[in-house]
């Protein structure tokens, strides 16, 4: 099996993508709401990723 090497950012985006898909699928009661919820979860993940990334960068000095 090939070995995969990813950056923190790539790994976090992949994690956000797969998690958002499943959260969207299992949470809401119709396809429209599932799609919207999945997209919203993904957006929240990305916002948190950039926010925490900047916090760590600035906090590091």
């Amino acid at each position, binding site marked *: 099996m090939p*070995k995969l090497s990813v950056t923190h950012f790539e790994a976090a985006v992949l994690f956000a993508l797969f998690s958002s898909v499943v959260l969207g*699928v299992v949470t809401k009661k119709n396809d429209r709401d599932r799609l919207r919820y999945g997209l919203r979860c993904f957006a929240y993940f990305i916002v948190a990723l950039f926010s925490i990334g900047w916090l760590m960068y600035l906090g590091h000095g």
Partner: protein
Amino acid sequence: MANESSVSAAPATRSWGAAVALAWIVPGGGHFLLKRYGRGGLVLLSVALMFLLGLMMRGAMFHPQTGDLLTVIIYYGGFLADLANGFLYLLSVWLGYAQPDVAGHVHDYGTKFLVAAGLLNVLAMVDVWEIATGKKD
């Protein structure tokens, strides 16, 4: 006056047991059994890809360990989450996948991907249970 619709017998275990068991063994399988093909396909794709990426990042599998409370929670919890991947976990262990826990962010992400894939499959199993018992469409 009592509301009769609120008093209903719990569904028999056999009516949802097979679907939930299949959802554990094959991610998305319970949805397929209940004819939710689109949702089953998305669950299968997400969980399988996440697990496969975890393996490709050489993530470590958890094994039950005893010790202090935190060690027990982390290692038993991690083991159960890995096990929740169903046949993906069983097959990879059977084929001899045994990555030691080594330092490095890629390995660390791999370990988290393996655990998270199992936890997402647990969510899918709960969804299957809700569908099979009529709590959800």
